[in-house]
């Protein structure tokens, strides 16, 4: 997959109506920020939305926070480059982890009433682990916010002709405004809005494109006949036997199931605070558990909106797959938008892309400012002030975070393949944390220093694997396969250290682990229950099982 530099050939022809549509969206987004500001009295309101949101809001925000620029453009690019196998990112690489988060892990996160994922580590382990994780998370959050910002600016520059600097400043300023004003509530409400706008932009594109291709059967025939595609592009599991790997991704089923499906996926969805924060701001335990489960259902069907355009672009544009210029894989969706959408819907689609960028960036910035304000500033730098001080701090940190994000956007610019860059970051940051969490939640003997060692050791292991790969000491079939192996190394090292160091140090007594470890103290799963929460369709187990069943069923036609 290739870079995003544009030569200026691909240009969208927006008219007044399209700009009006875009302007209405910007005004609405700002308006939400302004209105949300009126409900902010405390730092908890600003950073945690007062824990008062209903499940449908947090659920849609949960999936929208992940539906950033990278996700949409990147998955379409993957669809064009690897075909139907890209569904693995959704059906095995997201839904099982989301279900696990909702059913198993949310009771610990929500029941312990921590305000962030690092704070959970402080209670479960020690301050050193807490600070290590907070710092790692803060760094990764601004790096990823920067990638979103960079991708956005590139799209604005290429599609609308805006100079790069203008595009970056406008996008950053808008997100800055609505988050600084309205805090997490504003970010979450905007994410829900963004979810619908993104759908409104992509659904027409897919409908028109499929119609042009002659429906799914027409499209699959064309893909199978395409030189750059072929029959292998229509199957998710063919060619994945260990030792006989012929599928486009270059990984065996073992790598797909355990590397992507378990380690990378669970690492992201169960510990990434940008996501978990949405569930933590729900109004009660039932809503918190249902948040990722409600988010899982749209997630099951979003591949239709990203992979199908990728396949259509593959068929339509023989030059697709260039390293630079208009026909990079990442431009699959922009190329289709230019081809198919008349003014009107065009405005909606461009607004949808912008909404996606802003959703991704805002989720990272809002989680960054919570972690920085509560976990780093309040705990270690300036403890003991009154809450109004931390509310002000939260606002300042938002501004600083965005400025840093603008800076890191230019790091991303130096990378020809931003999707892989992000996956690599995830293997460094998410998997060690996941291993530490998993063992820490289920094994009470794990000691505080074991937590620290596991986190640090796992991270070093992942980084070392990548460095050795870059230095050609280790070889893997593709960059993606390296991330699977790097995750495996991180997991094994973290796990080994967790067990080894625990044996050599003293564990915390049970009364300090109440509600933090399975089996130690009971978590009240019915806390704060509202009328109607015990109906069958609000039962997390029912929702989770249904989501998993659908994801298995969806694989069947694409075997």
């Amino acid at each position, binding site marked *: 997959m290739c870079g995003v530099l544009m030569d200026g050939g691909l240009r969208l022809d927006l008219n007044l109506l399209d700009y009006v549509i875009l302007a209405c969206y910007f005004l609405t987004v700002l308006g939400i920020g302004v209105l949300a500001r009126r*409900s902010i009295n405390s730092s908890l309101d600003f950073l945690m*939305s007062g824990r008062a949101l209903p499940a449908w809001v947090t659920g849609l925000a949960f999936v929208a926070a992940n539906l950033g620029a990278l996700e949409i453009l990147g998955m379409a690019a993957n669809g064009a480059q690897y075909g139907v196998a890209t569904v693995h990112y959704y059906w095995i690489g997201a839904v099982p982890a989301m279900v696990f988060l909702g059913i198993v892990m949310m009771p610990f996160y929500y029941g312990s009433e921590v305000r962030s994922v690092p704070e959970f580590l402080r209670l479960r382990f020690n301050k050193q682990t807490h600070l290590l994780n907070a710092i790692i998370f803060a760094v990764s959050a601004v790096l990823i916010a920067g990638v979103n910002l960079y991708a956005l600016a590139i799209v604005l520059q290429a599609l609308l002709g805006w100079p790069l600097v203008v595009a970056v400043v406008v996008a950053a300023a808008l997100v800055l405004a609505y988050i600084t004003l309205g805090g997490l509530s504003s970010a979450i*409400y905007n994410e829900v809005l963004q979810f619908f706008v993104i759908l409104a932009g992509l659904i027409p594109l897919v409908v028109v494109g499929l119609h042009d291709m002659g429906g799914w059967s027409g499209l699959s025939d064309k893909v199978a006949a395409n030189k750059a595609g072929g029959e292998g592009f229509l199957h998710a599991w063919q060619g994945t036997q260990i030792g006989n790997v012929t599928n486009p991704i270059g990984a065996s089923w073992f790598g797909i199931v355990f590397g992507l499906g378990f380690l990378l996926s669970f690492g992201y969805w169960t510990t990434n605070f940008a996501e978990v924060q949405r569930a933590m701001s729900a109004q009660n335990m039932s809503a918190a558990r249902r948040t990722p489960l409600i988010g899982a259902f749209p997630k099951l069907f979003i591949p239709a909106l990203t992979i199908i355009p990728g396949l259509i672009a593959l068929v339509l544009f023989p030059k697709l797959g260039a390293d630079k210029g208009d026909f990079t894989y990442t431009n699959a969706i922009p190329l289709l938008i230019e081809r*198919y959408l008349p003014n009107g819907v065009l405005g909606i689609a461009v607004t949808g892309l912008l909404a996606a960028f802003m959703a991704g960036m805002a989720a990272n910035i809002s989680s960054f400012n919570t972690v920085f304000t509560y976990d780093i500033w309040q705990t270690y730098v300036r403890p003991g002030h009154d809450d109004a001080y931390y509310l002000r701090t939260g606002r300042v940190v938002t501004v600083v975070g965005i400025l840093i994000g603008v800076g890191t956007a230019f790091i991303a610019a130096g990378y020809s393949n931003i999707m892989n860059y992000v996956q690599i970051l995830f293997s460094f940051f998410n998997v060690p944390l996941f291993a530490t969490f998993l063992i820490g939640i289920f094994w009470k003997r794990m000691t505080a220093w074991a937590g620290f060692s596991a986190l640090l050791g796992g991270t070093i292991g992942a980084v070392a694997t990548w460095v050795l790969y870059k230095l050609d000491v280790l070889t893997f079939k593709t960059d993606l396969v390296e991330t699977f192996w790097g995750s495996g190394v991180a997991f094994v090292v973290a796990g080994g250290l967790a067990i080894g160091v625990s044996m050599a140090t003293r564990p915390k007594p049970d009364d300090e682990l109440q509600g933090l470890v399975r089996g130690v103290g009971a978590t009240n799963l019915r806390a704060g229950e509202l009328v109607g929460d015990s109906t069958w369709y609000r039962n997390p187990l029912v929702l989770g099982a249904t989501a998993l069943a659908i994801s298995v069923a969806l694989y069947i036609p694409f075997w």
Partner: protein
Amino acid sequence: MPENSPGDRDAEIESSEEAGSGAARLFDVRRIIGGLFTLYGVLVLGAGIVDGKSASDKASGIDINIWTGVGMLLLGLGMLIWMRLSPSAVADPPLDRDRRSTEH
């Protein structure tokens, strides 16, 4: 939840909770989503009605503006109707307020 939680867990979490929550006054987002999509539906449907053959030719023969406009209008109106039918979805009073046994 236990009687004696670790001291440092309570101090910081409590201070941010004690400052009081204004979030209960948060507006209903359905009003905004409903309003914006109703507007979008009207705009795009209007464009679909007045635009000529070239627009539908581009879109593989489909009057995509009309269909998208109608769809968005339905979404917008649907949101507003839902809000009207179950107005207190955001502000439902909880059955019991004890999310922690060491409630303040």
